[in-house]
């Protein structure tokens, strides 16, 4: 079966699942814009979460926030207006791009990965298969 998850580009010793995708939104000139993102698929994340640097590329609407929502006591702001794009493998084995417009969390800094949470995977009606030993896996339906 074809794979669409792998270790992060340039670091095969990192055993967490990643996939190249897009973040799409409206830029500061009110034009639709997209940027390449290496999503980390995080089964421990209830919500997708992007770094401050990624968020700064788009005009996002503020929904809310929390000073204590993440492991280690970190905060997040919740914003709407960002579309995530990633790939799932359908039941016929074909690769399909899917987009999700759920609100995302924004980190207070640029530490760590751009996180594709289980909210997005559920929204795409997908499941996660990951083999850390081989560093390969699939987001599939």
């Amino acid at each position: 079966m074809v794979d669409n998850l792998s270790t992060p580009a340039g670091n095969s010793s990192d055993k967490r699942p990643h996939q190249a995708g897009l973040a799409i939104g409206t830029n500061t000139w009110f034009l639709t814009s997209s940027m390449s993102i290496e999503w980390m698929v995080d089964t421990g994340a209830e919500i997708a979460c992007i770094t401050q640097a990624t968020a700064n590329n788009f005009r996002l609407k503020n929904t809310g926030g929390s000073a204590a929502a993440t492991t280690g006591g970190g905060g997040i702001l919740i914003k709407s207006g960002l579309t995530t794009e990633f790939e799932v493998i359908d039941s016929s084995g074909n690769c399909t791009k899917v987009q999700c417009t759920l609100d995302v969390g924004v980190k207070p800094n640029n530490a760590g990965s751009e996180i594709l949470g289980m909210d997005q995977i559920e929204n795409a009606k997908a499941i996660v298969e990951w083999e850390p030993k081989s560093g390969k896996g699939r987001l599939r339906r």
Partner: protein
Amino acid sequence: MTHEEFVDWLRDEVRNERMSESEMDDLLRQKRLFDGERSIIESEYYRRVVGYVAGYRRVANGIHELIDAAKAQFPDNMIYFEPVGFTLL
């Protein structure tokens, strides 16, 4: 993140025109309500996501459920929330 760090972050968002001053003030107002009821919230709502929006407490089983409910009722208000007894990521 301490309260002071959270306030500094919001001020930075305002300074960089990613958040309006009224949104910041609203969010901090809701946080004050949450902080004032923190001990009750932590004892009554284990494993749930609790927020304040427009002065009202809202409780949900997940973050999107909470956000969707808050937006439906108060689309122009900010919600301050915390997951109780767990983290979102």
